[in-house]
C-alpha cells in the first residue's frame, strides 16, 4: 500500500508541474509521466488489462502531443483578472472537496462487500461467455453496449479530426465567407 501512495504522490507532482511549467514541451512530458505512473498504479491494484491499454495509449498520445507541440506556436496565456480566477477556483475546490468528503464516507470500504451482480459475473462469467479472460467477457458480452458507445465516440472524434484537418476545401486568405452556405 505504501508503494501505491508513493506513485499517487508522483502523479500529483507530475500534474502540478504539467499545469504550472511555462515551456509547452516540458508540460507535455510531465503529462506523460502522469500516464506512466497511472499504469504502474493499475498494476499494483491488480488490473494488468487496464495497465497494458494505459501504457500503449500513453505512448501514442505522447507521440501525437509532441508532434503537435513542436510545430505550433501558441500565443501567451491570458493575463489579467487573476484574483477573480483564483477566488473562483478556490471556491469550487472547497465545494467539491466538501462534497467528496461526505460522499466518500458513505461508500463501502475498498473492495469489501461484493455486489450481487458483480458476484455473478465473477463466479459464473466464464461459463456463460466461454472466455477465460473475464475482462473481455464482461466488456464484449455482458456490457457490450458500453463498448459500442466507446467505439462510436472514438469514431466520431476521428471523423471530426479528419474534417478539421482536411487539405481540400480550405479557403484562400482573402476570400470572404459566403452568406447562406
Amino acid at each position, binding site marked *: 500500500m505504501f508503494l501505491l501512495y508513493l506513485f499517487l504522490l508522483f502523479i500529483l507532482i507530475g500534474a502540478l508541474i504539467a499545469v504550472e511549467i511555462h515551456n509547452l514541451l516540458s508540460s507535455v512530458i510531465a503529462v506523460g509521466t502522469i500516464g506512466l505512473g497511472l499504469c504502474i498504479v493499475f498494476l499494483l491494484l491488480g488490473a*494488468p488489462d487496464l495497465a497494458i491499454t494505459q501504457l500503449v*495509449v500513453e505512448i501514442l498520445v505522447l507521440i501525437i502531443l509532441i508532434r*503537435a507541440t513542436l510545430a505550433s506556436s501558441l500565443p501567451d496565456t491570458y493575463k489579467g483578472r487573476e484574483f477573480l480566477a483564483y477566488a473562483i477556483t478556490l471556491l469550487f475546490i472547497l465545494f467539491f472537496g466538501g462534497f467528496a468528503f461526505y460522499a466518500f464516507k458513505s461508500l463501502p470500504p475498498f473492495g469489501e462487500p461484493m455486489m450481487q451482480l458483480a458476484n455473478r459475473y465473477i463466479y459464473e462469467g466464464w461459463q456463460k*461467455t466461454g*472466455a477465460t479472460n473475464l475482462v473481455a*467477457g464482461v466488456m464484449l458480452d455482458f456490457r457490450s453496449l458500453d*463498448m*459500442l458507445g466507446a467505439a462510436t465516440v472514438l*469514431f466520431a472524434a476521428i471523423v471530426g479530426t*479528419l474534417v478539421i484537418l482536411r487539405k481540400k476545401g480550405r479557403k484562400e486568405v482573402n476570400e470572404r465567407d459566403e452568406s447562406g452556405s
Partner: protein
Amino acid sequence: MSGMSLVVKVVTRITAAIIFLFGCYVSLTGQLALGGGFAGGIIIAVGYILYVLAYGKSEAEIKTSKEGAVVMMCLGMILFLMLALLGFIGGSFFNNFLPKGQAGEIWSAGSIPLCNLAIMLEVGAGLYLVFLNLITFNVTVREEEE
C-alpha cells in the same frame, strides 16, 4: 531523401513487423489472456507511426494510403455494428449468438474474438489516421507560409 538515417530505417524494417505481429496476437487472444481489441489496435497504430516517422510520409503512404486507412476504419465500425445486429439471431441486441466452445481454446467465447477483430480494425486505422492528418496539416501550413 526523406525520413531518418539508414540505421533507423533498417532497424524499423525489422521491428515494425514484430510490432504488427504482437498487436495481432494481443487482439486475437483477447478472450484467453490479457489484452483485447483496443490495446492491440493501438499497438498496430504505433507500429505504423514508427514506420511513418522513420521513412517519411511520402514513402510510408505507398504502403498504406490515407484512403485505405479510412476504408479499414469504417469497415471495423460496420463489422462491429453487424455483429451487434446479428445478435438478434439469438434473441436480442448484442446477444452472443455463436457457440461458446471449450473455454481456453482459441475458437471459444462465441462472437467475442470477432468483436475484438472489429475493434482492432477501427482503433488501429483511426489512430493512425489522426497522426497522418496532423503531419500533412503541418506540411500544408508551412507551404502556405513560405
